[in-house]
């Protein structure tokens, strides 16, 4: 049994949500059963992802070939430290969302298929993290996209339809660009396996098609991740969805784009040559700055937070722009910290909505007195997002900004510090308006926030505190993960080692 689990560790984070989605869809008429199955599935997925992380930690990169086809012919699944950590952290977030859903998801939303779609989204996200085949990555992006389209239009309100149109058109456009990049890359190299591409590409003569392909990858993932001139779909749509969907989107979707960007631009294309670095640096600077400016003029908590997603993506891309191992480690740390904190802030926004009945800061107020616990639970992720020591955001920001000063891009480090200041401004705006100010409405009846909402918020807050007070293990982990990422040789060796084991002749 342990051997079997060890052999299939790579498949369970995918198979469990897929099976759960099927069970939830089969139990369409029974919301209670769907809820139970969904929670069980999420717990099992988390267990499976921890198992995967454990085997990656003990034996290095784990690979799996499908259909007994030797690489590079079959589809491979690969988990290195970075992808295993991403799977674990997204499973944690999904479980938190599943618990939050007990209190928040309405019967009508279950009837609209919340649970199967949510599990379907997790299939897509985990698939995108684990695949080792560039075309397969495209397929997982599409799986993710169709599930998110169902989730974003869950209530079918006018605002959701409006947001969904923009979301759908721009994201579909980005996946088609991604497909075009794959087509051109295939035309030049004749292979789709990422490890094989990493092996073949350094020996391939540079050509226009390759440059165009690299730029298209950057553009496609840039739209997905919400880079500076391409992010407009994000603040147009995220705040319209129901809060739990917004939280999961905020935590995971853009990060899948970022993850893909890191994969492609460490494994396939060198950031250092071909002038990709200055472009990424320009994108990162603009993303940080304009995201935080956008947040400054908003009144709606969800819209403020949506703009902050964009701003924080800029910090992560900073890691890729600097491209030293130190910066990569900072980026890995930043992604993990950001997924936890950002989703938590959206959960808190849901709790504020539950307590005051509004997301609009002009109408909210008085929460400091009426629910002090919520105030504390808001402060943890908010200060962490702004980078106040000793919370996790401080270490994340410290790592990337330190790397930028040590590298050759001090100007972008200075910009990042300035943006941190504006982030404090945004967070204090929420704090002053929703918590300090007396409620502007005369008969403000403050409702109690259910335990099922507070538990995930507190749990994610605890993770933030744990990372903040004891960053050393995660920093060490991020350093090793970055070292594996920046050295494709290990990745290639791991995938092609399968060949001898399978005993197949190429």
């Amino acid at each position, binding site marked *: 049994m342990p051997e079997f689990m060890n052999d299939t560790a790579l498949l369970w984070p995918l198979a469990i949500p897929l099976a759960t989605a099927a069970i939830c869809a089969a139990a369409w008429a029974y919301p209670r059963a769907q809820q139970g199955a969904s929670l069980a599935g999420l717990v099992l997925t988390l267990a499976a992802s921890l198992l995967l992380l454990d085997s990656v930690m003990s034996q290095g990169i784990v690979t799996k070939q499908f259909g007994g086809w030797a690489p590079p012919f079959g589809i491979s699944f690969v988990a290195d430290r970075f992808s295993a950590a991403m799977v674990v952290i997204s499973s944690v977030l999904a479980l938190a969302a599943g618990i939050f859903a007990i209190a928040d998801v309405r019967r009508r939303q279950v009837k609209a298929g919340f649970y199967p779609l949510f599990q379907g989204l997790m299939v897509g996200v985990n698939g995108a993290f684990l695949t080792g085949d560039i*075309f397969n990555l*495209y*397929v997982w992006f*599409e799986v993710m*996209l*169709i599930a998110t*389209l169902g989730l974003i*239009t869950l209530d*079918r309100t*006018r*605002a*959701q*339809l*409006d*947001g*969904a*149109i*923009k979301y*759908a*058109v721009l994201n*579909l*456009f980005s996946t*088609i660009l991604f*497909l*075009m990049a*794959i*087509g*051109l890359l*295939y*035309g*030049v190299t004749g292979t*789709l396996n990422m490890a094989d591409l990493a092996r073949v590409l350094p020996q391939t003569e540079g050509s226009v*098609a390759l440059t165009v392909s690299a730029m298209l990858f950057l553009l496609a993932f840039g739209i997905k991740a919400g880079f500076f001139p391409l992010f407009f779909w994000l*603040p*147009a*749509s995220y*705040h*319209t969805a129901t809060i739990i969907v917004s939280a999961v989107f905020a935590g995971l979707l853009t990060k899948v784009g970022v993850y893909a960007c890191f994969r492609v631009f460490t494994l396939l294309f060198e950031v250092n040559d071909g002038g990709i670095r200055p472009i990424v640096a320009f994108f990162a600077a603009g993303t940080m700055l304009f995201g935080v400016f956008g947040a*400054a*003029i*908003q*009144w709606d908590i969800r819209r403020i937070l949506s703009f902050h997603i964009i701003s924080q993506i800029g910090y992560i891309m900073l890691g890729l722009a600097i491209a030293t191992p130190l910066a990569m480690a900072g980026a890995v740390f930043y992604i993990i910290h950001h997924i936890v904190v950002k989703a938590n802030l959206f959960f808190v926004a849901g709790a504020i909505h539950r307590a005051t009945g509004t997301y609009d800061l*002009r109408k909210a107020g008085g929460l400091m007195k009426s629910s002090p616990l919520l105030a504390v639970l808001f402060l943890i992720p908010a200060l962490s997002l702004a980078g106040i020591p000793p919370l996790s955001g401080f270490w994340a920001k410290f790592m990337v900004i330190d790397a930028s000063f040590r590298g050759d891009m001090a100007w972008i480090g200075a910009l990042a510090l300035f943006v941190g200041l504006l982030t404090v401004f945004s967070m204090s*705006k929420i704090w*002053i*308006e929703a918590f300090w100010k007396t409620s502007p409405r005369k008969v403000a009846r403050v409702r109690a926030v259910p335990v099922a909402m507070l538990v995930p918020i507190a749990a994610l807050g605890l993770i933030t505190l744990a990372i903040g007070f004891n960053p050393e293990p995660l920093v060490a982990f991020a350093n090793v993960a970055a070292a594996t990422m920046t050295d494709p040789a290990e990745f290639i060796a791991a995938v092609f080692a399968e060949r001898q084991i399978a005993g197949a*002749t190429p």
Partner: protein
Amino acid sequence: METALTGLVGLFYAVSIYMMLSKHIIRVLLGIAIFGNAVNMTIFTAGRVLREVPPIIAEGRTALDGVTANPLPQALILTAIVISFSFFAFLLVLAYRAYQELGTDNTDEMRIAEPEGEGLPPLGY
């Protein structure tokens, strides 16, 4: 053959980008559909157009002999067609529903999610 296909692909891109720049959602959708097909043609052309010899290994041999057709681009395109078809169907329904609910197919008038003329945030405390 490749030259003719390349010209066709270019034409597809031109048409689709022109359509996608429209304000009307239905034209944008048609543009996206054509854009998807243009990309499919790109993959087909990038995979080298070789005719007539099916890629089947003869009995008793271990490898293909000579130049044969490349089956992989067609497998990729087939996958992409299935996916883009389902997305197109979904988008058509979404656009129709949005037209019913919002009463317009002009993206300039779709300002429900981001209303215009919101008040300024506090300028000081």
